[in-house]
């Protein structure tokens, strides 16, 4: 009954995945790992950076700087990852050119009229970017388009822009554009949002709030939550016990430890145990408050993240995906009727609780 969900099938659930999260939680790293996982599962993946490429080339160890034109970031045996940047200004330019208005495009920017227009129509920049994403999706530019979204506060605004724009622009091609974007946002087969968090208090709070707002205000479907930087269990350091190094050494080898070693081992172990306890508290809280499956990524002790670490994280996501129950229905955070005050019934919370992240075990 619980057949493992294949990686490729997971990646093909939706044509566009928007990856969102609070600043500093590892959103771009998670995006890169997802992209590589999908490519290794045979997909042709296109990663979109907003405004700039950020750390994406470095993460893939690709010696490229990419902008509005595509660049190859990763080439695996089964699939590849390409990257490009989308900026509102470029998207506008392209939009105007496509609509036969090349002449005015430059002057819009140089005269400052664009600032006036984008203030009069809040969300116009966002809608132009989402319109471009939609165009890439429709034109089958890739099997999977991954969008490294702006930090959460902005992400909600980013995705609600289409609704806001429909209020402001009562007619014309922009409104049509907004309509089409809203259609894409409402179709889980075309677009879903994956939120990334750390197992820490503030990011978890923000993630829960963002998830409900995205469902209520945007009506977008949320995929599994990526919980980044989870400690992988290690022998000798548990949440409820910590080995006594002196005794362990005595039992294992009959020898005592070097001067100072026991204290350092014990201090490091209790620090980790404390952090693990906090993490599990936050992960439990997340599971109870938000009935979404979780994909946990291992904590990497180094921040020097390059191709090797991205590959490691991609494999961890892949294994966590395989552990997901493919029968899982698309998540609705609130049980119907949608205006019910209960955030999630116990039943839903249980169903949404992920299996223990076996994939992470060494």
């Amino acid at each position: 009954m619980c057949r493992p969900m294949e990686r490729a099938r997971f990646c093909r659930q939706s044509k566009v995945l928007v990856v969102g999260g609070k600043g500093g939680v590892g959103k771009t790293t998670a995006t890169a790992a997802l992209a590589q996982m999908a490519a290794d599962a045979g997909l042709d993946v296109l990663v979109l950076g907003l405004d700039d490429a950020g750390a994406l080339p470095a993460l893939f160890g690709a010696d490229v700087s990419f902008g509005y034109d595509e660049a190859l970031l990763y080439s695996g045996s089964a699939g590849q990852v390409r990257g490009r940047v989308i900026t509102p200004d470029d998207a506008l330019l392209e939009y105007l050119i496509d609509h036969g208005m090349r002449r005015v495009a430059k002057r819009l920017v140089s005269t400052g009229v664009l600032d006036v227009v984008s203030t009069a129509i809040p969300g116009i920049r966002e809608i132009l970017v989402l319109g471009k994403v939609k165009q890439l999706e429709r034109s089958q530019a890739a099997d999977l388009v991954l969008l490294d979204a702006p930090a959460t506060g902005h992400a909600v605004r980013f995705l609600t822009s289409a609704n806001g724009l429909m209020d402001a622009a009562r007619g014309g091609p922009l409104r049509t554009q907004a309509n089409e974007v809203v259609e894409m946002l409402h179709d889980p087969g075309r677009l879903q949002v994956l939120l990334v968090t750390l197992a820490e208090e503030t990011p978890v709070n923000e993630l829960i709030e963002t998830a409900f707002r995205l469902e209520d205000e945007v009506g977008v479907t949320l995929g599994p939550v990526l919980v980044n930087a989870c400690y992988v269990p290690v022998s000798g350091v548990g949440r409820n016990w910590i080995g006594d190094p002196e005794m362990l050494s005595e039992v294992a080898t009959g020898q005592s430890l070097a001067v100072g070693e026991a204290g350092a081992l014990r201090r490091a172990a209790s620090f980790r145990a404390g952090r693990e306890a906090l993490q599990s508290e936050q992960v439990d809280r997340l599971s109870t408050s938000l009935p979404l499956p979780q994909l946990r990524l291992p904590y990497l002790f180094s921040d020097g993240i390059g191709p090797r670490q991205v590959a490691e994280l991609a494999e961890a996501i892949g294994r966590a995906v395989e552990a997901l129950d493919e029968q899982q229905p698309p998540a609705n955070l609130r049980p119907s009727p949608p205006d019910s005050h209960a955030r999630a019934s116990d039943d839903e919370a249980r169903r949404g609780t992920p299996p223990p992240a076996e994939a992470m075990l060494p």
Partner: protein
Amino acid sequence: MSEPPAPDAAGPGPERTDAAGPDSDGPASAGPDSGGLSALLRDRSIVICCGSGGAGKTTTSAAIALAGAIAGLRTCVVTIDPARRLADALGVGRLTNEPKRIEGSWSGELYAVMLDAKRTFDDLVERYSADPEQAERILGNRLYRNLTSALSGTQEYMAAEKLYELNASGAFDLVVVDTPPTRNALDFLDAPGRLTRFLENRVFRLLLMPTRMSLKALTVATQALLRTISKVAGSEIVEDAMAFFRAFEGMEEGFRERARGVEALLSDPGTAFLLVAVPRRDSVVEARFFADRLAEAHQPVAALVVNRLHPDFGSGEVALSVPGTDPPIRDLPGTDPPASSGEVASTRPANLASRPELSPEDAARALAGMRKNLADFQALADEERAYLAALESKVGGTVVRVPYLSRDVHDLAGLLLVAGCLVGNVRSEGD
């Protein structure tokens, strides 16, 4: 004070030598002069905290204001974080756009403001409008209502504006501002100019001229531009914009002057820019970028606060725990000072090592795990120190290191701990 603390005296373990070793630099140390931000608090009247999202800007800002109040100053922190977290930490129900006094047992005064950019702008409009009718026309305009949320830089400008207002009130010795998480430090410095440029938009101002003049002045290209906007977005947009600029007429000079005042305040020697970072690559890259841009704007970084530094376990440091949050670390066996194994076993019911059936293989595996764990954390601490060195060499100014706290700061006790770190009078337990 050379007497070791009581627990260590009871069991002088070998690691005591490590703890007293030459590298046992306390995590809250602040470079050569260990007063941390004390001098900054004393000498400056405005502190602007910049940094990447997630670096702990909001908490740092509040802790600086608190440290100032403890030092006897009248301080005010302006936050832009709409989460209730800070209000909760300060023990107040709700923060508003006006300073709210935070009671506590410090000799100075502490106030907090939650920036409401829209409200701040409304106040400005009311101040510079010729009459209440003009103010009403502006406040009711649809384009105006979008301005604070849609025109980038407006939030930053309103934060600066609030700063100006609080500073000018003379009610505070020190105002600390938590800047919006912007990618570009200069958004903050540019903001006043950007808004005045917006308000003085040439195209729309031409449209407001008497008809005959405007027909002459409007080039063919400009007319095409406006036609395009109407065609793409609907003619209401152009009408809204016209109404907005018409309503604003006569107020530009007041606004421009105010913006000049704000700009001058930002570059005043009494204003300090403080960078908040975490020892991670992204944050360090961004902090270096901020430092460059600020230097270009002739605004050197006065201080750098590095949050979330991992302890160096080899040197005997112990992570600081936030008091009042029941830190689980302290409750765990293994954190006690070394004791004879007999005692250890009796106080550790769940300790693997105390199980009689522990095989040599299990013990070897557990020991290997603990060694790997220590090695991982030491590599991490080394990496963090390298990032820190790279940042310090670039930034200059006072550097303050705040260790990884056991929890997010969510009460006054936590803020007090951070404030102590910032002025350099909290030492790690290993010292």
